[in-house]
């Protein structure tokens, strides 16, 4: 079967097409709420040329942020836009991925960890520069950018 291989971190039991289907069902209504077309949170400096070794740290940090901050603060909109079912599918599959990621904490991985952390901080800083609700809406609307990047590690 297919699985995610984020460097040393392997994740089974998630079908990427099901995540895409869930997001596609919400995409237009969610992205239409984001009027700030001049800011992209998950921009190239965050996601491009990520090494295999970095990828586990970066996806762990991003998914943790999405679950703790983005999804949590977007939930009431999901109810309002009647997209709760697709929202729940995404959130619960992100939980599966998170639960299977075991990024190594060994000392020799410090520089790789730091590199991934700098990328994540670029994203988080851009997020904090926006109004809170606008930032949550934009981040949730950029899940397709995240899924497109995750494709690279789906084999």
């Amino acid at each position, binding site marked *: *079967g297919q699985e995610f291989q984020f460097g040393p971190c392997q994740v089974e*039991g998630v079908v990427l097409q099901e995540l895409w289907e869930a997001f596609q069902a919400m995409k237009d209504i969610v992205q239409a709420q984001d009027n700030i077309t001049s800011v992209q949170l998950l921009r190239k400096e965050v996601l491009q040329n990520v090494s295999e070794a970095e990828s586990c740290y970066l996806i762990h940090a991003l998914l943790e942020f999405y679950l703790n901050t983005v999804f949590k603060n977007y939930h009431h909109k999901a109810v309002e836009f009647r997209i709760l079912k697709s929202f729940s599918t995404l959130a619960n599959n992100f939980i599966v991925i998170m639960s299977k990621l075991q990024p190594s904490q060994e000392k020799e991985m410090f520089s790789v960890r730091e590199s991934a952390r700098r990328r994540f901080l670029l994203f988080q800083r851009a997020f904090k520069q926006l109004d809170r609700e606008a930032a949550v809406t934009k981040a949730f609307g950029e899940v397709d950018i995240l899924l497109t990047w995750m494709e690279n590690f789906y084999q």
Partner: protein
Amino acid sequence: DGVAVLPAPQNLSVQSTNMKHVLTWSPVIVPEEIIHYSVEYQGEYESLYMSHIWIPSSWCSPTQGPECDITDDITATVPYSLRVRATLGSLTSAWSTLKHPFNRNSTILTPPGMEITKDGFHLVIKLEDLGPQFEFFVAYWKREPGAKEHVKMVRRGGIPVHLETMEPGAAHCVKVRTFVKAIGRHSAFSQTECVKVQGEALPL
């Protein structure tokens, strides 16, 4: 209606076979009255991050029978909490919650049904259609000492598919099992079935 308090449904349980999940419960009986039920679910995300949130089931909010097909609601391989309540007019019962959360990786995977036919020297197989989550691994071989086993992956059931062109006089055998990506599990193999074709060798 002469009913002060509506009892909550009891004996909730989930039966899951081949990724089809059905929640059942004991019906609430009120003579000469029709009771409706509402089913709601929570994935692990909801129970961890927003435990007050329950999501109405796609097909059973409300429903009349004491069962609910929750297959479309279970869309991740995590534990799901499920609850049911009864309603009669303006009366509603308390919620009853499934004792142990349900995870789809516990589904029972049965060997798939298959139909083997011949068309001349062609060996044809038709597999049970179990839906888009299932792939089929078909193993087939010529029944003779040291014969090599071939494997073909069939993506969807329900369509008769040519497996191989047989040699006359030899028995050709087939067995099949399913694989479900979403839970990373496969079923046991089916019974082996063999067929034989008489007649002259086919010039290739």
